[in-house]
């Protein structure tokens, strides 16, 4: 299947579901734009949760804690309830026995000792935690109500740093300390290894908290139906998990709940959870018997939703005099915020510890620690950017220590292609890789020799701005290793008129499934793409599903659809046999089964028998390991500390790209977020646990004006475990970009900026940070 067309053929109007295109100018119709979803999305005809019109719909607003840690003494809702248009106001006390608790992501784990109620009960643990919910006739009224609620909190000591929180005698949860989990990967490295090694380097890094900032923050609309069921319209990545969690938390039959995902304004990993606000909204819709909607706004989401990253890291690497890595030890204190809802993110950092490097001894120790900050959860990359950043900066330290070219050092240590499948000491099986190939291609495309020469020339000059070249080589994981999450469900139905309806358990939040999956199915079946439509994101239509996260959609969902299509071909042939054809004579091509003189289209076969022509199944798919090398060339104005990225070359290998254009678009998006992490983004907290940004004027995102010249290219190492050969794509850009840029800035500013092994510059590289570094001042050391 690696012979898929490199570019999309024009497709006819989508068959289903029927979007409203009537007002869309013909020139902007989707089959001219390329993606089926584009016309409605770029003309404002998309239907997001906020666009759905439901008669009698109420709006919810939340009162959130402004105190990071304290005893919740009283919530006075009296004045709020008096406001004209306010339908009801509830604190945890008002909810009583009906107060839902967020189901643990890993039932039975230690997380259940630190339960997260839908509304704070007797303690608040971060600024932004929901304390009360107001339902009103519109959002204005609901916010007026939220304004009128009086909350009395007796402050407790505040912990904002995970290291400090782990050691503190102030515990966020009565009876259990602040270390939610401790994980180890690989065997501890003997002291002797460190002592005998020719070189040992050590680095300490801080991963700031990032706000995922999809264009559309969280959004949910719960509609009680006349038949006693409830329809949940929600912008979500994993509707089936949400359905199950809602059933658990609200003690409802799963069958009563229909979760539907309309158009979505992005997620970046941040919409896979079962959020406390969602539990309150559904609970109140059911209690009131009226539709209730909650659309999170930008001010809320920056501290009320979830954050990504947030780790304190320490990395040690031992190497011989030729730079061959002997041992790598990684220690992580992962800041999981007020409630430990997603410790698996930090586990990924530990599992991946040594990345693409052949290192005989690897050990990672990861602690997840609760603090008085917004809970952390997956954000694009989810554990991999953290690991890659820590290791890639330390590899550069090693190169500097050895006086070796950082590219050559990496090349010497890569797991060689013939070593795959490779069992890493941390207990992970890497499927395939040609790491040196990607590195070499990156160096060639950036013209590494030219820039090194230019760097030398500038260093000789007194007047020109410092130039630096930074590398990042990485291997990441796509799809999931854990058994149930490695599956995906798919079905194909042939309608009597010969069209094919595909259903899949993934759920697009902007990954172009609506275009790519029908094309994939059509290609496998040999029929025109316009004959295939896709249904996903609806738990009534799609009987089971895992969802879209971890770059799994094409690798797992696409593979499932591909296999289902192959099974459909077999089923079609069996039908022909049942109609009297001799099995050896039956062939299939281009949507038609033929045997001698006789032939049937898929539609013919669907009408020939009362039994529907359909296949469905759950298909298993192992995790895969995409990889790549990124190179950044930067120029630094040492007077002001401004970093200008002159070039960014990204070589990615995600196996076979089924739709290269869409992979490239997702890579660019991820790169921009990587640039954000490197240079702009951070949610800072003060010592009182107050987030220091409440809007996008304070929390800076890169815009099109910050986009440097990009060169994207690929190497292709097919996934050996799937017929498509596809590995995951979509997250690599934010994994490879930050270390490449930071290593380049350090390379520009010179040896002293890396300082001692411990310390050196820390993310994000703000002008002030770089100015201090250039001026030889202490920067971010700890």
């Amino acid at each position, binding site marked *: 299947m690696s012979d898929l067309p490199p570019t999309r053929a024009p497709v006819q109007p989508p068959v289903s579901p029927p979007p409203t295109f009537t007002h869309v100018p013909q020139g902007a119709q989707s089959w001219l734009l390329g993606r089926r979803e584009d016309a409605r999305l770029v003309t404002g005809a998309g239907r997001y949760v906020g666009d759905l019109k439901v008669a009698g719909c109420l709006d919810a607003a939340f009162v959130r804690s402004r105190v990071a840690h304290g005893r919740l003494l009283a919530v006075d809702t009296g004045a709020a309830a008096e406001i004209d248009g306010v339908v009801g106001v509830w604190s945890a006390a008002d909810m009583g026995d009906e107060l839902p608790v967020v189901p643990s992501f890993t039932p039975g784990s230690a997380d259940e000792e630190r339960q997260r109620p839908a509304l704070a009960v007797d303690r608040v643990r971060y600024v932004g935690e929901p304390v009360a919910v107001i339902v009103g006739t519109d*959002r*204005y009224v609901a*916010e*007026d109500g939220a*304004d009128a609620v009086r909350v009395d909190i007796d402050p407790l000591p505040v912990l904002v740093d995970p290291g400090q929180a782990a050691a503190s005698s102030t515990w966020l949860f009565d009876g259990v300390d602040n270390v939610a989990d401790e994980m180890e990967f690989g065997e501890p490295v003997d002291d002797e290894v460190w002592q005998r090694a020719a070189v040992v380097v050590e680095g300490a890094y801080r991963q700031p908290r990032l706000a995922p900032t999809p264009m559309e923050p969280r959004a949910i609309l719960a509609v009680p139906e006349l038949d006693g069921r409830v329809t949940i319209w929600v912008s979500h990545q994993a509707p089936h998990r949400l359905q199950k969690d809602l059933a658990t938390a609200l003690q409802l039959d799963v069958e009563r709940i229909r979760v539907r995902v309309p158009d979505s304004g992005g997620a970046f990993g941040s919409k896979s959870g079962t959020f406390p606000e969602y539990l309150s909204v559904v609970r109140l819709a059911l209690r009131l018997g009226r539709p209730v909607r909650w659309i999170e*706004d*930008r*001010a*809320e989401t920056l501290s009320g939703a979830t954050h990504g990253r947030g780790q304190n890291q320490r990395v040690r690497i031992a190497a011989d005099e030729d730079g061959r890595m002997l041992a790598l030890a990684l220690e992580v204190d992962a800041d999981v915020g007020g409630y430990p809802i997603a410790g698996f993110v930090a586990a990924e950092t530990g599992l991946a510890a040594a990345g693409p490097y052949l290192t005989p001894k690897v050990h990672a120790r990861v602690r997840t620690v609760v603090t008085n900050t917004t809970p952390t959860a997956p954000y694009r990359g989810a554990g991999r950017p953290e690991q890659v950043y820590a290791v890639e900066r330390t590899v550069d330290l090693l190169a500097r220590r050895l006086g070796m070219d950082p590219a050559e050092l990496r090349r010497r240590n890569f797991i060689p292609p013939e070593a795959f499948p490779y069992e890493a000491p941390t207990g992970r099986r890497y499927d395939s890789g040609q790491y040196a190939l990607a590195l070499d291609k990156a160096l060639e495309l950036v013209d590494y020799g030219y820039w090194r020469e230019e760097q030398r020339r500038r260093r000789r000059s007194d007047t020109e701005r410092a130039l630096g070249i930074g590398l990042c080589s990485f291997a990441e994981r796509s799809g999931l290793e854990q058994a149930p999450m490695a599956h995906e469900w798919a079905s194909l139905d042939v309608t009597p008129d010969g069209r094919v309806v595909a259903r899949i358990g993934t759920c697009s939040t902007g990954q172009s499934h609506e275009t790519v999956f029908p094309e994939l199915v059509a290609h496998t079946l040999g029929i025109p793409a316009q004959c295939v439509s896709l249904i996903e994101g609806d738990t009534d239509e799609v009987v089971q599903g895992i969802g879209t996260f971890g770059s799994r959609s094409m690798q797992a969902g696409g593979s499932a659809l591909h296999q289902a299509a192959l099974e459909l071909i077999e089923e079609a042939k069996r039908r022909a046999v049942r109609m009297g054809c001799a099995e050896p004579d039956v062939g299939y091509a281009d949507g038609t089964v033929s045997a001698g003189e006789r032939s049937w289209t898929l539609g013919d076969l669907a009408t020939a028998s009362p039994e529907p022509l359909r296949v469905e199944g759950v298909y298993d798919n192992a995790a895969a390991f995409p990889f790549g090398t990124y190179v950044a060339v930067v120029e630094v*104005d040492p*007077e*002001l*500390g*401004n970093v*200008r990225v002159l070039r960014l070359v990204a070589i990615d290998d995600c196996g076979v790209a089924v739709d290269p254009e869409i992979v490239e678009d997702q890579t660019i998006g991820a790169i921009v977020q990587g640039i954000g992490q490197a240079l*702009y983004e*951070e949610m*800072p907290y003060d010592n009182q646990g107050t987030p*220091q*940004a*409440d*809007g996008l*004027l*304070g929390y*800076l*995102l*890169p*815009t099109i*004006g*910050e986009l440097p010249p990009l060169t994207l290219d690929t190497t292709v190492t097919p996934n050996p475990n799937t017929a498509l050969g596809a590995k995951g794509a979509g997250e690599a850009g934010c994994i490879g970009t930050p270390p490449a840029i930071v290593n380049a800035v350090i390379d520009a500013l010179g040896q002293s900026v890396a300082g001692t092994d411990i310390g050196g510059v820390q993310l994000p590289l*703000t*002008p*002030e940070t770089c*100015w*201090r570094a250039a001026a030889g001042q202490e920067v971010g050391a700890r």
Partner: protein
Amino acid sequence: MKPAPFDYAAPAELTDAVTALAERPETARVLAGGQSLVLDMHYRRERPALLVDINNVRGLDVITVDGHTLRIGALARHRAFETPTVAPAALGRLLSRVSPYIAHPPVRARGTMAGSLAWANPVSEWCATAVALDAGIELTGPLGRRRVPAGDFFVGPFRTARQPAEILTSVLLPLLPGQVGVGFCEQRRTHASFAQVAAVAVLTLRDGVIAEARLGLAGAADRPVRAHDAERHLVGREAEPEVFAQAGELAAAGSDPLAEPHAGVEYRRHVVGVLVRRALAQAREDSNGNYGDEGRDRHEGREAR
């Protein structure tokens, strides 16, 4: 992010607007471009009981030359200053150099210069420009019109000499002769962010010697300020790099910036010095007739972001 309830009036006559405002001055706000006010209302940091929208008032968007003065109406949008022809000679060059640094195009299409002055953000580009040029700020209230010099108008962060019942109706900028050189440098983190520091430089040169110097600074104090020490140092000296550097050091030493999460006091003070020096160098080039990109570091905008 929905505002608290408020009343709304949108009179067509200035007198009606003034009257509406005078009825409850302490709780009313004037709406022009709304690019800061409406945002703060959404956050409920501002809760006016009455919003007096002046967008229907005729004639307030006019920009006219009146003798040696450019008179800018309260509804002239930032975007109007993007082309140098908005004002004769050096003033047009300066305004068109400054305006692209204000936020991003949608904000510039709505927001107004007068509104920026009335809002008085200490990092505002127009506020620094106004103090550099000794702008006249014309206020209309129940008792008539009065004019306040920019140097007296800004009294603190987001605080001005405007009385609650007054509307800032016009900004008066002195025209600058063609041979005057102008420069503008800004340090900001992204193209759409607020300035951390910005510097406006206006130089009058005679035979290479500085006859007059004006320096307006944003982000150097709790309000827009002129760098008087640096200006005094410049006058009578040759327009040379080391003189500019000395002026920068004086401006930095005289500055008293506020801290913010990503720019501490020390850094901001340092940046004042660098930007003053660079803006002066730009102004000298500009004075030499190198108006276009050749005379400037083409990347200055990006570099100094």
